[in-house]
């Protein structure tokens, strides 16, 4: 019976009895009933089919043919030459492979590769089963290409075998299943050096496949001495303790309490909030640790090339670097404190960190990690010869055809080896990349990879024959007229000098001769983008022979960056005011600058979004409203905008920015009082306490005095004199170090009575004359008219005694004319406080101005504290001196890049939320930087500073992924809100249209349809070659969205094609011989066995 075809059995068992039973028409006894109503109901209830008329006598020809078919089927071997269900041109599994489980034992990572013989796209799925139990279903949409490959990753289910079955939508298997024997899970030994049992140890124990040993820090030295004889550890974890010499093992430091040669602890953060610096960082994969209160955490300042994977605002929380080829991760917060260990994500974080430490080094590194040139673009599979089993594709069933095919395959394998053999190191790779060509070639290569031992590599000739560009990398979007880096990876067979030509839209923009080495070469060139919407960059490598290589990439061009330059006063008509120098310099560097006075800045967040950077040039703090400052903070923090504050008499501390919203954004401290060489100062605040000052004005006067006192040094002296019809000392003149008493006594300022300023001024002058101070100053605050008196004589007398007077007028009732005259005669400054809430800033500013602190007007040369890409190409050593700067304090978490001769901050920057803030304490106008204006580096310096600080690109709500498969372009778009407060939410029900752009061609359009929340897809068959650009825009309607673009490079370079072409070698011959052996073994093994055509590649 085993020789009977299944269809024959089916025919014999089912069809034939029916034919026999109903071959002739039957006569039935007839009975008349009153109604069929009840019969119908009964039949319906009985669920029986009604036997109706309609049976016919079968056609004798049909019966004869059926019998003949039955005869043929009965005599046919089901695996014979007559096409069976498996032998039609169905898709088939070409390869099923696993990565080696060396350091990553509990995760199975591998891939399935399918062949598709027909042109029509197939929707199939691959079912992965472990010992018959379904583990994962991988859906495929197949095309007639050899790109049908998907990577899977699943937990190691334990020893046994892994089957991959290819089925269609009806769950019908399309080809024999492929099978792999799974290796056993290996354990990893972790040494925990910790004082006591902590949540960290529990989390380590919870990681599958991990064996944890804890020792006391005191015992570590002894342990490390006998480590050679003890059981080797895979990972070392130090909790709190830092050894004197870092071990040469993958290491995790948790909450270090001491410095080491790689980092130092510069402070402590209380309850920092974690912000992932890199969302794709594997340690933070599936870990949600935002908004939790971490315990007191040391602020780590690391040296060298270190990747920050997560950070808080004040400092990094999770760092990674390589030490001696071994990965090291530092987790700054202490799990034993704060909420970290109580979160469900903590064990996952620890597991991810362990996996990251144990991951083979060939894995692509994170952004920010200084990767070596070789590793930067290396394919995942390149360093990992996979253990591979090959399933011969469909068509190899049936004894005779199978033999013929096997012989043909072996012959083809030999021919392939002769024509295109592989390098020794690339053997396994070829198996992956070219599996569809012929499975047996892969078998041969695998055999060679297995046969090749460590003692034999010297036999390789290693010669390949073609020069090939394997990859071009460029930013996804480029700014008009802005420089960007084009990175070219090319494979070179021999050392030679080639001519590198880069063309933009057909016109050469770069041409040079380059010496390149054998193997993979990486060339990076900085180009300047044009203003065109689509820019096609073609890279040509010409070695002078016919062996040329060429590749292209299409890049969408964006508009020039826009900068808003905010100044205090409107620009003059001739444009020769102070701000025009910087604006002109930036314009010559292809940056759009829009100078505006503060009164014309945007009044809403939408207005700020139009700009990529905001420069504040000498605008006093009291000129801002709190709302505008909040908008600016949101613009920087949530929208990623850039902010630069330039120095000047009205900037930073002298501008009254201390304790304002903008002061939080600045990477320098505005309150800076430590210039000891300044003479001591005595100041008296003469405050109007008449009846009109009651209420809010009195409270603000109190705040203003506090703000003024806060700007003084402890050795300065201050007093407060309240006046109405008479005067009274609220606080007599005394050193500010006792300012606690001063400020508390301010609360007794009582409002009431008339206004008589002259006696109060006289009293203040009398008190100041006897004060022991180098400078004496009076600040008058009033809101009304005073009794007439000889103010001129009074103020001249005070001036003669070295006492200066400044005045602050509140409200419309104030006698502004008198107050301005008083300030004029008293050689001070007059202020009119239109906005009452700005009075404290005015007082602070006035006090600083009177003390002449906060500004150093001595010429200084600039010093570079740490080099930065921001100054690349700028000869800062040749920069002329600056004639003045604002005194500020350093912030510990900011990067102070430039300093003055005295070591004070000149240029500091830091990241604030999503944006970047920069402070330049000198100016960029003809005051302090007058000598810079003639310096050739002035324009480039500011252009580079602006480009480094500004928002890279406005956030786009559309994230586009375009790929070319066969002759189709597949576009997938993810649409999300990019602006606060809805950032991250999906856009649904959009009507999106994708346009394919190519220079000189009309754009080809096709619609995208929504497949999931926020996910839109579309496919378009096109005859256009690569490269091309894809632009996605929304159809005009209720909901429109800003269009976005992406470029596709040419030739299309899938991941598995990025490797060097194979070369001729002796290993190819060995491969072929081994392939023959393996194939024969497979045939012998399969002959008596079931229909599973899978073979184990490794015996």
């Amino acid at each position, binding site marked *: 019976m085993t020789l009977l075809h299944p269809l024959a059995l089916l025919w014999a068992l089912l069809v034939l009895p029916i034919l026999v039973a109903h071959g002739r028409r039957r006569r039935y006894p007839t*009975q008349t009933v009153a109604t069929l109503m009840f019969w119908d109901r009964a039949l319906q209830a009985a669920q029986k089919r009604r036997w109706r008329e309609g049976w016919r006598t079968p056609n004798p020809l049909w019966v004869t043919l059926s019998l003949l078919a039955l005869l043929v089927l009965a005599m046919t071997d089901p695996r014979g030459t007559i096409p069976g269900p498996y032998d039609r041109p169905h898709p088939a599994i070409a390869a099923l492979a696993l990565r080696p489980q060396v350091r990553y034992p509990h995760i199975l990572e591998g891939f399935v590769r399918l062949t598709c013989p027909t042109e029509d796209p197939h929707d199939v799925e691959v079912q992965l089963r472990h010992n018959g139990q379904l583990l994962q279903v991988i859906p495929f949409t197949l095309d007639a290409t050899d790109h049908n490959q998907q990577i899977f990753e699943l937990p190691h289910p334990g020893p046994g075998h892994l089957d991959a079955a290819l089925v269609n939508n009806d769950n019908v298997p399309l080809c024999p299943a492929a099978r792999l024997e799974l290796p056993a899970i290996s354990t990893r030994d972790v040494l925990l050096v910790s004082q006591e049992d902590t949540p960290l140890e529990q989390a380590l124990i919870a990681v599958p496949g991990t064996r944890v040993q804890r020792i006391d820090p005191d015992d570590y030295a002894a342990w490390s001495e006998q480590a050679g004889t003890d059981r080797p550890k895979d990972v070392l974890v130090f909790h709190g303790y830092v050894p004197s010499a870092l071990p040469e093992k993958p290491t995790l430091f948790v909450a270090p309490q001491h410095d080491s040669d790689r980092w130092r602890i510069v402070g402590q953060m209380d309850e920092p909030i974690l912000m992932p610096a890199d969302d794709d960082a594997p340690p933070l994969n599936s870990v949600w640790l935002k908004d939790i209160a971490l315990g007191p955490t040391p602020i780590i300042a690391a040296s060298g090339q270190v990747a920050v994977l997560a950070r808080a605002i004040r400092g990094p929380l999770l760092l990674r670097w390589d030490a001696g080829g071994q990965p090291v991760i530092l987790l700054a917060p202490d799990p034993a404190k704060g909420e970290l260990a109580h979160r469900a994500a903590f064990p996952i974080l620890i597991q991810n960190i362990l996996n990251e430490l144990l991951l083979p080094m060939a894995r692509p590194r994170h952004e920010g990690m200084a990767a070596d040139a070789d590793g930067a673009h290396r394919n995942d599979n390149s360093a990992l010869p996979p253990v591979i089993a090959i399933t011969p594709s469909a068509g190899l069933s049936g004894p005779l055809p199978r033999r013929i095919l096997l012989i043909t395959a072996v012959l083809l394998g030999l021919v392939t080896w002769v024509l295109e053999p592989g390098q020794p190191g690339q053997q396994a790779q070829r198996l992956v990349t070219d599996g569809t060509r012929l499975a047996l070639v892969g078998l041969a290569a695998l055999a060679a990879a297995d046969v090749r031992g460590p003692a034999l590599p010297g036999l390789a000739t290693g010669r390949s024959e073609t020069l090939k560009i394997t990859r071009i990398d460029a930013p996804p979007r480029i700014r008009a007229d802005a420089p960007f880096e084009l990175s070219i990876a090319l494979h070179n067979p021999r050392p030679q000098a080639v001519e590198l030509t880069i063309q933009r839209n057909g016109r050469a923009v770069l041409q040079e001769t380059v010496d390149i080495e054998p193997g993979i070469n990486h060339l990076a060139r900085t180009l300047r983008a044009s203003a065109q919407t689509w820019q096609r960059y073609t890279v040509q490598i010409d070695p002078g022979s016919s062996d040329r290589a060429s590749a292209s990439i299409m890049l969408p061009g964006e508009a020039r960056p826009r900068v808003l330059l905010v100044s205090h006063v409107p620009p003059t008509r001739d444009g020769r005011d102070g701000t025009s120098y910087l604006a002109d310099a930036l314009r010559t560097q292809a940056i759009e600058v829009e100078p505006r006075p503060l009164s014309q800045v945007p009044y809403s967040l939408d207005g700020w979004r139009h700009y990529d950077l905001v420069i504040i040039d000498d605008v006093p703090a009291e000129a801002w409203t709190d709302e505008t400052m909040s908008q600016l903070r949101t613009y920087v923090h949530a929208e990623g905008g850039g902010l630069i504050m330039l120095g000047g008499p009205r900037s930073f501390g002298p501008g009254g920015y201390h304790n304002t919203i903008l002061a939080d954004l600045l990477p320098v401290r505005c309150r800076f009082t430590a210039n000891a060489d300044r003479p001591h100062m005595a100041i008296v605040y003469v405050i109007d306490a008449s009846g009109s000052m009651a209420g809010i004005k009195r409270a603000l006067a109190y705040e203003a005095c506090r703000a003024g006192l806060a700007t003084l040094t402890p050795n300065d002296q201050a007093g407060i004199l309240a006046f109405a019809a008479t005067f009274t000392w609220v606080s007599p003149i005394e050193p500010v170090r006792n300012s606690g008493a001063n400020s508390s006594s301010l609360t007794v300022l009582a409002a009431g009575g008339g206004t008589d300023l002259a006696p109060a001024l006289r009293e203040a002058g009398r008190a100041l004359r006897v004060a022991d101070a180098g400078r004496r100053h009076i600040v008058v605050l009033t809101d009304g008219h005073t009794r007439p008196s000889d103010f001129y004589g009074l103020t001249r007398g005070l001036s003669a005694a070295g006492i200066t007077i400044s005045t602050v007028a509140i409200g419309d009732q104030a006698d502004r004319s008198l107050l301005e005259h008083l300030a004029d005669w008293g050689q001070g400054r007059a202020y009119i406080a239109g906005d009452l809430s700005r009075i404290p800033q005015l007082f602070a500013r006035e006090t600083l101005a009177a003390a002449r602190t906060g500004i150093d007007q001595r010429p200084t040369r600039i010093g570079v504290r740490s080099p930065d890409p921001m100054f690349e190409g700028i000869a800062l050593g040749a920069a002329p001196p600056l004639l003045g700067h604002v005194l500020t304090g350093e912030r510990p978490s900011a990067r102070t890049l430039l300093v003055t001769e005295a070591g004070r901050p000149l240029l500091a920057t830091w990241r604030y939320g999503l944006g970047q803030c920069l402070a330049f304490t000198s100016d960029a106008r003809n005051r302090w930087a007058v000598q810079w204006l003639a310096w050739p580096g002035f324009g480039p310096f500011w252009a580079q500073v602006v480009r480094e600080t500004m928002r890279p690109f406005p956030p786009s709500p559309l994230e586009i992924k375009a790929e070319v498969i066969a002759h189709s372009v597949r576009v997938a778009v993810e649409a999300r809100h990019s602006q606060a407060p809805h950032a991250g939410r999906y856009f649904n029900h959009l009507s999106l249209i994708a346009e394919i752009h190519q220079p000189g061609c009309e754009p080809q359009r096709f619609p995208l349809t929504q497949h999931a929340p926020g996910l839109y897809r579309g496919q378009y068959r096109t005859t256009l070659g690569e490269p091309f650009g894809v632009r996605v825009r929304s159809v005009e309607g209720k909901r429109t969205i800003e269009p976005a673009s992406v470029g596709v490079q040419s030739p299309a370079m899938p991941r598995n094609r990025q490797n060097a072409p194979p070369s001729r070698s002796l290993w190819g011959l060995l491969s072929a011989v081994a392939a023959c052996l393996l194939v024969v073994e497979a045939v012998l093994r399969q002959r008596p066995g079931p229909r599973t055509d899978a073979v184990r590649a490794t015996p």
Partner: protein
Amino acid sequence: MSAFGSDFLQKLEYLALVARRVYPRRLPIERRQATQRGRVEFADHRCYTPGDDDRYLDWNVYARTDDLAVKLFEPEHDLHVYLLLDVSASMATTPAKRQAALQVTAGLAYLALSHLDRVAVYPFARQPGPAFPLTRGKGRILSLLNYLNSLEPVAGGTDLARCARALLQRRPRRGLLVLISDLYDPDGPDPALDILRHQRDAMHVVHLTDPTETAPLRQGLLELVDAETAETRRVAVDAHLHSIYTQVYESFLSDARQACLQRGIGYTHRTTDVPFTEIVLNTLRESGGRP
């Protein structure tokens, strides 16, 4: 062939005697029509007692005698009896069924005529047929029997609701409705009963079925022909289907009974192997307990 034998008139006379003796004044055809108070005849006066309806005070007597007297009435005995006879083909699947239907109709009509009521016969199937108009007096029984004899089965199905609607339009006034049928309407008897009940006639249903309809005669492969529509079904009758059919039929009978009783309609079900006199007497009896 006549549905009435030579002794049929004697049986009718006997039926009338028995009926009068066993159910004096309680025959459905003699029931007073509570709803026809306006069509009654004056009988007598009696003294007013508190609680009497003052609408029946005789003010003329009061004017003349200063005594309050209440008028007493007696209902009119000239009742209209409408006999609705199903003459669809399903009522003639067997001769006995047809005969039983005609004899029951004749019996009820004779009782009514002998009690000086007016009788009309309305035959119907899918639609109403030519009616026997309202008639009065026992002398008309022979012509009624001739009329019944002349009725032939009508093929094409039964539509009770449509015929009920037509009858209500054709009859001169309200009376007693007696429906004699097997109720084999695909829609069931409920719509028709709702229509007939609508004008608050007194009503009774005589449900006649044949014993062969209760269960099929034999098992095996059968080709069943619908007597009314000539549709056929090929049915393999086995014990399982047989039991299901019996359940379906039983539920039909109980549903019909339930439908009548829920609407306050008298209901009598008999198979046609029962003598017609017994059916008529049962009809009288089963309606007698009703108020």
